[in-house]
């Protein structure tokens, strides 16, 4: 459950974050304002609140349904929690992209313009590929944070690791230490390889300047 939640939310966060980052560098002023407001607002709100907003606000109060799954409360809550996680981390992905763009020397973008490339072409063919390399480390950190933050979905009753752990402890309190260790080792096994891969990738792709 944790893995599924993480994977789906990561996908969503990537999409949202890339879109927001695009907005922030776009030539249209309104989009830039949207991007900045989104990042400022979401980054400063506790994740718990974002997930609450999705589950209680959009699902319970507005009765919006996630269209691609059945109507059971289980499935709907799961997907709304995923959307909450995705929206929250999307803001961090956008920041990661921005720091990646900042590592690209100004001359690159200027050269692209001098060649006559437009905004879309310059961004796609010149800046973004280089920005991705600079953004790998912060993107990886966001992914690791997302893996761990998926536990927050427990607050709305999604049966991921922390929720299961709480249930197990309530059921068999005598095994507290064992339960905690098991779950902790599980997380270490999820996050350490991710961190390892990220540092490997960022070293491999590093641009020597």
């Amino acid at each position, binding site marked *: 459950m944790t893995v599924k939640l993480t994977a789906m939310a990561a996908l969503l966060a990537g999409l949202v974050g890339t879109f927001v980052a695009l907005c922030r560098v776009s030539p249209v002023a309104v989009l830039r304002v949207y991007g900045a407001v989104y990042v400022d607002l979401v980054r400063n709100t506790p994740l718990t609140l974002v997930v609450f907003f999705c589950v209680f606000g959009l699902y319970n109060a507005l009765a919006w349904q996630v269209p691609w799954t059945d109507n059971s409360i289980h499935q709907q809550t799961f997907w709304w929690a995923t959307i909450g996680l995705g929206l929250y981390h999307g803001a961090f992905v956008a920041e990661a992209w921005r720091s990646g763009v900042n590592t690209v020397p100004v001359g690159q973008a200027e050269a692209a313009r001098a060649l006559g490339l437009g905004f879309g072409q310059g961004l796609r063919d010149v800046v973004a590929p280089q920005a991705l390399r600079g953004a790998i480390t912060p993107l990886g950190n966001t992914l690791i944070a997302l893996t761990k933050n998926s536990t927050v979905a427990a607050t709305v009753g999604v049966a991921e690791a*922390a929720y299961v752990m709480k249930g197990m402890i309530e059921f068999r309190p005598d095994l507290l230490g064992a339960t*905690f260790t098991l*779950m902790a080792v599980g997380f270490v096994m999820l996050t350490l390889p991710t961190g390892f891969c990220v540092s490997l990738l960022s070293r491999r792709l590093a641009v020597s300047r």
Partner: protein
Amino acid sequence: MSTVLYEEPGPRTKRINAFIGVIATLAGIALGGTLVVGLGDHLAPEKFAPFASRETWLYYVLPGLRATLVAAAVAIVTSISLGIVLALGRLSHNRSLRLISGLTVEICRAIPVLMFMVGTYFALLMSGTLNGGLISLVAVVTGLTLYNGAIIAEVFVSGVNSLPAGQREAGLALGLQPLAVLRLILIPQAIAAMLPALLSQVVVILKDTALGYIVTYPELLRSLQNLASFHGNLVASFAVGGALFVAINIALTRIATRLRHRMR
């Protein structure tokens, strides 16, 4: 950074951009409108009426805010202390000390805050050494401290490592003990470099106190939920709570940015 990506727009591009701008504005209004209309009943003025009364603030909002700030303040102090201890360990000459603190940092960083909180909460509950209200506070603070202490240790270490090697060598050449070099020469300079990172970690701590919700710590969100279950205005209450959080955190972020500019 955004201006280097495109030329000064010509008349046609200006029109296109204005067109996209208008569409985006309309889309924004539509989305906001759908939310407000859809949540209309939940955001109606009478749902905010409880926030006009003194009792609401006196018995729900302010105690909740206080609990949040108390947990955050205690956690900030303990995290920084733990961070310093771990950082000293990682910077020490003793190899096993370095190994142990490095391992501690890695493990604490890999495990979610929430699991630390839940684990501590039940461990304390079963040991029965503390009484009710204190358990959840200790659980929240422990969870936050273990995780953020590890992060702050990393911030400290990278701050010290960012200094020119000559500083350390000069200190040693003057005949200072390694610990004295760290205390008198390296740390005062490192603090300047890492203050912004430290402050953004404070924002993280403040936000993460909201996780105390699950171990029944009466922080802002939980006390707002209690309020909401009485008045039936969950969405409105959480909107107020969100606004409070955003206001405090944006203020902190602004301070961090200003500090960063001044340090330069």
